[in-house]
Every structure is written in structure tokens, then in C-alpha cells.
């Protein structure tokens, strides 16, 4: 990448200052050590950035980045993604009613169903996300409003949650489990997906609800407190549910490996998003066999149990179906960026080549002649 000249300087410390014979024993002892380091003469590689030397680097970056970029772009384009907004802002949208008459205390869940059709079949595993917009999960007050020791199964923290959880720390004199604003605002819409067969029957598509959280979160960071019995409800005795929840934390799922603090929906939600528009993994639709695509072309119905209010802060709720490649979901940015940088480097390489030929040789000649 850089031109270089490897010069090992010889120790020529004695060349100046004709050493007189007078230097006695006393003088020798005070004489500085003649080591390469102390004399600042360590052997060194001395690279210099010049047009000539960075030229190859620019061309190489150009030649390397453009194909990578194209590859990334194509990969990203091959990913199939379908996104549908079910917030119900418009009068016409099916969830409009649900979004209007919402209250936390309503016992009767509001349901609405949204129909859509996929033009192309989704071949491999399909990942189902819910997306929220204008939702500040990265607000400082929100981010810190959690107690990681409690979620890690610490019994003391279970009974006496961290101060950071205020104002979602205690309710009616009982500690909240899990405490804090993040847990309190757990996304609680239920999404179900039906395939509308051309023959008229609706088939419920099996949604897998495990494997959506980081393995380390599920197995190490989040742990249910260990009590006397295996019964979770006994362990959580003496705590209460978060204010906005309809059920207790030990009632989140019937599967004991996905219940309590290690419920994956909870874990996913607890990983606060970086930006106010975000999506979170909800379910996975696994590919059944080689013969049929995971989601064939056709019409589908999304059945929403509408619990989660977002209209008050002008938020939006979306459902996203996406296939995944090695580079994740659909994001043309990386591909485009690579292509752009590659082309710019290539172009600069050409410019530098011209400069190098016009100026480089001239200045060198001038130097040598002077």
C-alpha cells in the first residue's frame, strides 16, 4: 500500500566531536548508552504517502469494492420482504375501530383482520417482525428503567427492584416483576397468519416462537429465580405484575422453557432498539419441506389482537414478513455504498495517475537538478 524503504541506520554516533583522549574512567560512567533506542536510531520502515504509492491501493480498493458491492446489492434485492401497516389510522383500514376505542382495562380483546397477498412465493425460512415507528425505546429514562439482576433471577432484586425502575418499581406495596418502563410497555399484540387457499379454506400458518432471542440472553442473561418448587408462580410469590400487563410474568406462556423472565417475547422487547423506528422479531415460519415454498403465492389474512396503543404518540405498527440471506434482511445501503466507494476510488486512482505522471516526474526532476 505504501512505498517503503527499509533503512537500518548504522550507529555512527562517534562521527562528530572528535573524542579526545582526556575522557577518563569518570567520564565513561556518565556517558549515555549508545543504544539504538536512546540515540533514536531504531531500524524503521519509513513509508511515505505519495500519488505513486497510493495509486495501486486506490485501484485495488476500486476493483475489490465494486464486485463486492454488486454482490451485496444483488443479494439484498433477492430478499423477499412484505410489509403491512395495521395501525388503523385511516377510516378505511380494518383496525380503525380497534385503534379508536382502546383502553388498558378492557377485558374484551379487540380483534381485526387484515388481508394481503404475496405476488411471489417466499422460499426459505420466513421471519415475521413487528415494527413500531416514532417509538423512543432509546430514550434515556426508558433505557435505564430495568433491573438486570432481577431479570437474571436474583431473589433480592426480585423483592427489592432497583431504583432505576421508578416509577414502575412497586405497585400496591408489592414489587413489580419484571420492573421498569421497558417491561411495563411489553408489546402485547397477538398476530396470527392465515393462508387463504384458492379453494376458500383458511389455513393457520404455524408460527415458531422460540429462537427469536439471542441465545446468550435466553440462557445466561435472563433467568427465572430459583425457588423451592418447580412452580414458577410460587417463586414469583410476593411480586405483582407490571401495571399495564394483563397477566403475571409466570403466565406468559405455557411452555416452562419460555415462561417467566425467559419468555422470548419479553427478552426481545427488553433489548431496546437503537432508533425510534425499529422492528423486532416476532415469530419464525419454518420451511416445511423442499417441495413447497414456505409461503406460497396467494392471499393471506393477518388476524390481529389489537392491544397495543400507539396512536397517542403518533406511532405506527407494522407487520413484516421477510426472508433472510447471509447478510440479513433487505438493505440495499451496503451494496450501494460499496459500489459508490469502489467507483470513487477507481476514479480517484485515474486522477492520481494523471497527476502522478504530470507532476510527480516533474517535481522529481526538479529536485534532482537542484
Amino acid at each position, binding site marked *: 500500500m505504501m512505498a517503503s524503504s527499509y533503512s537500518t541506520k548504522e550507529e555512527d554516533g562517534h562521527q562528530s566531536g572528535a573524542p579526545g583522549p582526556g575522557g577518563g574512567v569518570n567520564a565513561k560512567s556518565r556517558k549515555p548508552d549508545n543504544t539504538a533506542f536512546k540515540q533514536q536510531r531504531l531500524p*524503521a520502515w519509513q513509508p511515505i504517502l505519495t500519488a505513486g504509492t497510493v495509486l495501486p491501493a486506490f485501484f485495488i480498493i476500486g476493483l475489490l469494492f465494486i464486485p463486492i458491492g454488486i454482490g451485496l446489492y444483488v443479494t439484498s434485492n433477492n430478499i423477499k420482504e412484505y410489509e403491512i401497516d395495521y395501525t388503523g389510522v385511516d377510516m378505511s383500514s380494518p383496525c380503525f375501530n380497534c385503534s379508536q376505542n382502546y383502553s388498558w382495562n378492557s377485558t374484551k380483546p379487540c380483534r381485526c383482520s387484515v388481508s394481503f397477498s404475496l405476488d411471489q412465493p417466499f422460499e426459505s425460512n420466513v421471519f415475521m417482525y413487528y415494527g413500531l415507528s416514532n417509538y423512543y425505546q432509546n430514550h434515556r429514562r426508558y433505557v435505564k428503567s430495568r433491573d438486570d439482576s432481577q431479570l437474571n433471577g436474583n431473589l433480592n432484586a426480585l423483592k427489592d427492584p432497583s431504583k432505576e425502575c421508578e416509577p414502575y418499581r412497586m405497585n400496591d406495596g408489592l414489587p413489580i416483576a419484571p420492573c421498569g*418502563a421497558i417491561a411495563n410497555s411489553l408489546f402485547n399484540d397477538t398476530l396470527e397468519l392465515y393462508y387463504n387457499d384458492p379453494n376458500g379454506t383458511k389455513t393457520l400458518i404455524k408460527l415458531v416462537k422460540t429462537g427469536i432471542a439471542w441465545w446468550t440472553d435466553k440462557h445466561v442473561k435472563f433467568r427465572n429465580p430459583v425457588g423451592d418448587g418447580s412452580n414458577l408462580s410460587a417463586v414469583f410469590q410476593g411480586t405483582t405484575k407490571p401495571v399495564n400487563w394483563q397477566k403475571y410474568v409466570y403466565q406468559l406462556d405455557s411452555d416452562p422453557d419460555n415462561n417467566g423472565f425467559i419468555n422470548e417475547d419479553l427478552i426481545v422487547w427488553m433489548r431496546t432498539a437503537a*432508533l425510534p423506528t425499529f422492528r423486532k422479531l416476532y415469530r419464525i415460519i419454518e420451511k416445511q419441506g423442499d417441495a413447497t415454498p414456505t409461503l406460497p403465492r396467494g392471499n393471506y389474512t393477518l388476524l390481529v389482537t389489537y392491544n397495543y396503543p400507539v396512536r397517542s404518540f403518533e406511532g405506527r405498527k407494522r407487520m413484516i414478513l421477510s426472508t433472510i440471506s447471509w447478510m440479513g434482511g433487505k438493505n440495499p445501503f451496503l451494496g450501494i455504498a460499496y459500489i459508490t466507494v469502489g467507483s470513487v476510488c477507481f476514479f480517484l486512482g485515474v486522477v492520481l495517475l494523471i497527476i502522478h505522471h504530470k507532476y510527480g516526474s516533474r517535481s522529481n526532476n526538479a529536485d534532482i537538478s537542484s
Partner: protein
Amino acid sequence: MDFSALRNLISRYCTGEENWVDSRTVYIGHREPPPGTEAYIPQRFPDNRIVSSKYTFWNFVPKNLFEQFRRVANFYFLIIFLVQLIIDTPTSPVTSGLPLFFVITVTAIKQGYEDWLRHKADNAVNQCPVHIIQHGKVVRKQSRKLRVGDVVLVKEDETFPSDLILLSTSRDDGTCFVTTASLDGESSHKTYYAVQDTKSFNTEKEVDMLRATIECEQPQPDLYKFVGRINIYQDRDEPIARPLGSENLLLRGATLKNTEFVYAVAIYTGMESKMALNYQSKSQKRSAVEKSMNAFLVVYLCILISKALINTTLKYVWQSNPNRDEPWYNGKTDHERQRHVMIRAFTDFLAFMVLFNYIIPVSMYVTVEMQKFLGSYFITWDDEMFDEELGEGALVNTSDLNEELGQVEYVFTDKTGTLTENNMEFIECCVDGHVYVPHAICNGQILSGSSGIDMIDSSPGPDGKEREELFFRALCLCHTVQVKEEETVDGIKRGIHQGKATSFYISSSPDEVALVEGMKRLGFTYLRLKDNHMEILNREDEVERFELLEVLNFDSVRRRMSVIVRSSSGHLYLFCKGADSSIFPRVISGKVDRVRARVEHNAVEGLRTLCVAYKALSQEEYHNMCQLLDSAKLALQDRDRKLAEAYDLIERDLVLLGATAVEDRLQEKAADTIESLHKAGMKVWVLTGDKMETAAATCYASKLFRRSTQILELTTKRTEEQSLHDVLFELGRTVLRQHDSLTHDTFSGLSSEFQDYGLIIDGATLSAVMKPAQDDSSGNYREIFLEICRNCSAVLCCRMAPLQKAQIVKLIKASKEHPITLAVGDGANDVSMILEAHVGIGIMGKEGRQAARNSDYAIPKFKHLKKMLLVHGHYYYIRIAELVQYFFYKNVCFIFPQFLYQFFCGFSQQPLYDTAYLTLYNISFTSLPILLYSLIEQHISMDILKRDPSLYRDIAKNCLLRWRIFIYWTFLGLFDSMVFFFGAYFLFDNTTFTSNGQIFGNWTFGTLVFTVLVFTVTLKLALDTHYWTWINHFVVWGSLLFYVVFSLLWGGVIWPFLNYQRMYYVFVQMLSSGPAWLGIGLLVIISLLPDVLKKVLCRALWPTSTERIQTKRKCLTVEQSTIFMLSQTSSSLSF
């Protein structure tokens, strides 16, 4: 103290005593004087404890903390820390507390250790035993218990425990020899004299009998000045008063030599001793870089405050919608809700300040200090600046000015001992126009040069013979040279004539030694001073004895010295020797013209000349002189002035004998050094006390003036002819015309050859020019003079007094460009100039160590200045410039993404990075590479820097720290941080980039930005590094590796002491995704691209001479290294 002042006041009015400003009375042995003389008022004096330590065990912590927090930077960080403790801030107090604690602790430990050393040294001094005479017996006491008035017994090779007045010595003549090597570095033995009336006391008993008081001035720091009086009470008579001068005062710290023992009385003890008073620290010099740094800091402080203000304002604008301020999912506590909006806004402002405070890093101060401290070792280690003869290398007294060495524009140098060896060699003498050359140096050149003039063999007649011998005797007698005799094993002392190896002459003035040695070669050998008799071995090997009656010491105002001697035949002579200008006006007869001609001839040759004159005295004349001198010596007040007047009266009506010429050879490579400094764009001024002709000759010899140089003279000779006004204006016109044509020439490209000017000015004219403005015109002189000087490449100032040297430096310092000045000198007379200049350099010369001690850097020889400035100075400057710029750059890169993130997190002060990253970024991830860079970077090799001094011009005028470059770095930082932030933003934009569909959170976002940041910032430094030793490779790649390992570890464990586990496996999860790797690589390259491009384009299109040299060197070596380059290219590819 009040009592003594009162007493003085009373005595002054009642008895009409001389006007003492302030004085003290010391009762020797604490014995009251006989009644009726004066009331015995015991005065309180401090004990003899030396306290150089700053702290005690008890006050160390509070006092040290107070001292440290008085520094603005530390105080700023303390405030930030306290704010973090008090209010609810985004980052934990640890993030700023830990670095601050670290800095404070390290500094405290360092200062504590230094103070402990001082305590130890103090204790060693304070507890060392002293022998005090009490009631006729010798008592051993600890030094700190010594009190004023105690009579002390000091034995040979012991150090004086306080300032003492010598009472008597083991020698019969009441003298003792002392070396003041530890005080001023002069290792020669100086003679001190006991008081006449007490010098006979030889036992404790006798000393104990003494009843006397000493009146002397209150302590003052001047080592060479002392005025006092001793009143000796004998029986019931009136006390005998004797004068006391500095020749009676033994200074604390000096060592007794060649004398068995002395009795002396303590007058100044402990912190009042002259040595302690001289401890006072020098004023702190600050470098130009430091000033720029502070200016940049102010800018960054403004940026910081405006950032916090912008964000606070935007926060409240944004929050005006209650659903944004407090959406249902993110409730506030009641306490928060109830707080007044103004208080909330203020805490928000403080919280933003805390969030962004890292933009002014604590670590920069630490790194800069470490860089300076450690970097200065390279100067002391430098083998090429080691002098074999002296056995010493360069010394660094302050490391604060390392980089200033690279910025010097004016060099003020002393001549004698700095440009020249100060190793005098007797060349010739001239008696009545006959030239004598010692055989030893009779080489062909000198013979031919003085052919036609009588040689020593051709005797000039009987009359001349007498004069000749008188001349030689005069030179043998008129000096203060001592003979140092070395004892052989069996204790037999050998004389001078028995061999040179065992005895030699010592004097504070090398000229005198040269003269006495020259006389020895001409047949007259000075043997010794014994019992006030000087012994001379004449040509016939007979010993002649002269009684030494008076010595009228040399001083720089009179520029001459005299002795009065009585020959064995009873004749009285006054011999006087001195500069021609001070002898000729006092001469009434002798062959003045012929001698003057010879003196001028020699001066042009660059030799130092002295004239010798004598006067035969009658007994009566001598008697008058004695009276004159005694009365002057007895005076307590204005003694110096009175003495000078007496000398003036005595040294007149002389008969001129002849003149001597002594050569002071130029120091090795002095000319080469001056030439290099000129080429490096520095203006060299020679400031000397010598006379014009000699100095000018030296200047020609040292290539300060070249043959082509047009000399402008501004001397008394010229100003006598014309008025100063006219001369100045005429010179000004000459120079300015040149200047104008020069500016025209630069356009036409013909600037290469232009007349350069040299100016010669003497002290008298200078003081006329500098005289404060009485009327309007003289204010102008200064300006015109400056204008002339600015256009002269070399200036010679001769006949300068020490203070004038400092004045000149000050004048240039204060001129409107505020150039950086450097003063170099070797003698005590250069100290004022060394202290005044931005950088003071002392030469470890023969005239003592005063200059070296007061300087910022000390070097053995003048030639070392070249390497000091051109290599070390250059390196230190580019190193620290990069250090400062880089530090600001990397912190912009660090903090600006946090600022941008506020726009995406509702201005909630959410930090982008984890606490550990915030804390460790400046402490460990990015600290070592820049520290190492700032220690060992070499953009051009040392040999080229030395060979091509003009490269020094490339860094002149603080050019690497100009605002333009500072702004470039800041914008580069802003660009890079935008790339980091928005790159990560688009990568995260509403999608996933893992292959298992899982989603990353905000901490992964921050970690991604941080990783790109650490890599970019480190690689940016790598791109700037021109000198890759294995240490660089180790540190640069090592610190990147450390970052990765640390992140793995930090995220790999559930840390029980943390109340959050937000980083758990974040780093590993990020690295498990392919696009993260691709993104990091891409963003790093994008960030580095503009800087590389700028560098390459600037180098190709507008190269500086530094860059040209670099490229050229590369071209020359490129052939053999092509293969290597290819391999490097491929290896960088794989990387």
C-alpha cells in the same frame, strides 16, 4: 524583628548613624557586650533548619489537592465530576471520576515522592553534626540546632553549615581556601580572610574569650555581596570596628579546602542563608505550543457549551408535545414531574455538558506532560551531544520547552566561552613596540607575521631590558592566580618548577592563567603567594620576593585590575593591567602610539588584548592610597561606589609598559553551526562585552559575517561624527531600500541573491537608542533600530553589560511579530539574558556553572546547538503539534456521534457508548499510539535534518498549529464522525443484518460506531506515522488488539459488580454478522479516504521542502526496495 527595626530607627536619629536600610546585630557566642555600649537586645532569628520540602505529613493531602485543583483543567474536570455526582446524568460519575482520580493520584504520588526526597535531603542536611564552641569546649550538635551567634569549628573538607564570618584559621596568615563548586560550580579555590584582630585565635579557649558584635545587613540573595562590620570589645576601651566584606563571609554550601580548620561565627542561618535565598524558583516559561493549545481549548469549550445549549433548546422545543415528553410507555416519577421547568432545563443543560465533556480530555494534559517529560530524555541520552573532555552530555532543566526549540527565530549568543573556547593561549606580548613571542608556539606563521619586529633574542638595549623585565614582573605580579599544589604520597609539596604535572594555576579568569603561563615560557615563573609575599623565579633561577600590599580587584565596569607591591629592595610599585580603552586614558607616558598600533593590529586578528602599565610610588603616596582604600572599605553603605571612586583616584598617571595578546580560539565547528542556523532562517546576534574589533574578527571567523556582508556600524565612533538621529535614519534608509527591492524581486523570481546586512552596535549607542522616550523622537529610535535589525541577517553587539544583553532580548521579544528567542551563554554575565529569552541555553563552560544552572537546557559545546535545534527541536515540534491536533481530532470523532444521536433519542442525553468505552477511550484504547508517536516519530531522518538546515523553515512560526490546520483537523473529525454515525444508521435502518433474523439493540449500534471509531482513529495515526519501528507496530496493532480483547471480555462475562448487563455478548453478536464486518471496513476506508487524498494531492501539487526531501529520498531508494514494496502491498491486501 520589630525590636531591631525600632532600635535602628532610634539609633539612626539619636547617634546619627549611617543610613542602614535594615541591619542585624549578632552577638558572638551570645555574650553581652560590656555594659554602657549598647543595650543588649536579643533578636530572634530562625534556626538553622533548611526546609526545601513543600508539604508535611499532615498537610500533604489537602495542600496537594488544593495545588492541583488550582490548575484550570483539573478544576474543570472536578466540576464535571461533582455535577455527575449531584444530578442525574447520563453517564456514571465513574467515567470522569476515574480518569481524574488517576491523574490526581499519579501527580500526587510524583509530587509526594519528590517531596519525600526533599525531606530526606533536608533531614540529612539538618541532622549532620556541627561543632559548636560553648564555654571553651567543642560541642557536637545537629546542624539544625545551630543559632545565629554560635561560634563554629569547621574542619577541612567539611561544608559550612550556615553563612559564617571567618574569625580565625589554622593558617597563620588568617586565610582559608574554599571551593564554591556546589553553589556556583566554580571549582577553583577562593581565598577568604579572617578579621585582622581575631585571626590569631587558635584554640577554643581563645575564641571563647572574644567579645564582639557583628553588625550586618539583613540577608539578601546576592552571593557576592556582603557588607558588615565587626565591633571588638577589648577590656573597657572603645570597641575596635573592622569592615567585613564578602571576602570574610563563608557561604553555606561551600567547602573548606587546604585549611585544617577555621573558627567562624554564624550570622545567617537556615532559610536566611544566601544559598537558601537563591533557591527561589525561576519564573515559569510557557511555550508557544502551550498557548495555541489553550486557545484551541477555549474554542472547544465554546463548542461544548453551544452543543449543550443547542440540545437543551431543541429538547424543550421537541418536548412541547406532551406525548413526546411523556408517552404512556415512559412515565416520569412524581418527583420529576413536580420540578420547576427552569430547574429541569438547567439540569438538562448540565447533563448535556457531562455527556459531551469528553471533547476536552483529561488525558491530553497527562499525555502532553508525559510526552515532554519522557521526550526530554532523548536530549540527555544523545551521544552526539556528549562531550568527552567534560565528560558530560546535555542537561535538561525544564522539559516544558522542548518544542520551543523547533521554533527559534532569534539566537542571541555570547562570544567568549560560547563561540570561542575560552581556552586562552598566550600569543605574544609587546613591550614598547617590541614583540615577544614565546618559543613554545613559535611556528612559522607567527614568525612571518611579525617579521621585522624585534624578537626575544635580540635584546633592545639596556634601557629596554629594564623595561622588559619590569613588564614581565608586572604580569607575574598583577593577577589573582593561585597555585594549586598537589601533594605527593609522602606529603612533600613540590613547587612549580619541578614539573607541570603536580601543580597548576587556578584562576577565575582564564586570561590570567594564560598570561602567567605565557610569562613562564618567557622565563619568569610565578611560584606562589606566601605570607603576603609573591615569589617569582626569574630567568637566572633566582627567587624574587615582592610583598603584596593591596589588590584592587578586577571588575567589569573598570575593566582593569591593579596590585601594589613592595619589592625586596623596598621600592613600591603599582601595576595595572586592563583593557586598552581603560588604560590608555590613564597613561601619561610610554610609547603609546606604537603599543596602540600593535593592540589594534592584534584586535583585528581576533586576539584578546590587555595593556599593562605601572607607576612607581613613593612611601607617602602609598600611605595616602592606603587611607583612601581603608576608609572606603570601612563604609557600610555605598561601599562599592566609594571603592570605585578610590580606585579611580589611585589608578591614574600611569606609565605604559606594553600590551599582551591572548588568543581565544573559536570553538570547534562554531562557524558551521552558525552557518546552519542562518540557513535554518534564524537570525544570530552576538552579544559580547569584548571590544568591537576583536568581536568583529570573531564574527568573521565564525562566518556570522561573510565577505559579502555589508556591515552597518552603529557605534560611538560614528555617532560622534554625526548625530545618532542621522545615523539611524541613514542606516534605516539603506536597509529599507534593499527590503523594497527584495519584495519586487520575489515577484520576478530573482530573490536568490540579495545583499545581506550585518549590524554592529556598541553598548553606549545601544543605551542611547534604548533610552526611554524623553521627547517624541527617541521613541522613534527604538522602532527604527528594530526595523534595521529585522533586516539584518546578523547583528553584533559589543561592549555590552549583562543587563543590556537582557534588554536586547526583551526588545526583540516585545517587537510586533513576537518572535521566539533563544539565548545561549556560558558565564554569569549571560544569566540575565538566558532567563529573559524564551529558551535559555547554558554552555557548561569554564566560567562556572551559573549559566548552565539557570538555563532551560545546558549543552557542553556551542556546536551542539545545531543538533539541539535542527534535530531535537524540529522533532519535538512536529511531535507535539501532531499530538495536540490529533487529540482534538480524536475527541471530536468520539463525541460528535453522541451529539448526533441526541436527535434520534428525543434529546434524552442517552449515551451512545457504554460507560466502559466512554471511560477507556482516552485512557487506554487510543492513548498509547499517540504517546509513542509523540515520542519517537521522525518524519525525516536525523542526518537529513542536520544536512539540510533549511527544513527548519518549514515549521517556523508555529505553522503546524495555525488556525487553518486546526480547523482542517476539526472538520476532518466532524466528517469522520458523520461517517461513523450515519454509516451505522443506514446499516441499522429498520432492518436486521444477522443471518438468523435476530435484531440488534442500541448498545450494538453504539458498539459498532465505537469500533469504527477506534479503528479509524488509530489507523489515521498510522497513516501519519513516518517512522515505523517495532515498537510502533507493537503499540498500534497492540492497542487495536487490546480493544478487541477487552470488548470480548467485557461482554463475555456477567459482571457481578455492575447493576446492568447491557454489554453482555453485544460485541460477539455484532462480529457474528457479516455485514457488520463489511460495514466496519467500508466506514473505516471512507473516513480515511479524504485525509489520504488531501495528503497525496498536497504532496503532488504543492509540496513543502520537507515533503520534497522525503520523496526524493524515496526515489533514490525505490529501486532496491521495489520488491519489498510489492510484498507490502500484497500483505496490506490480505489485511
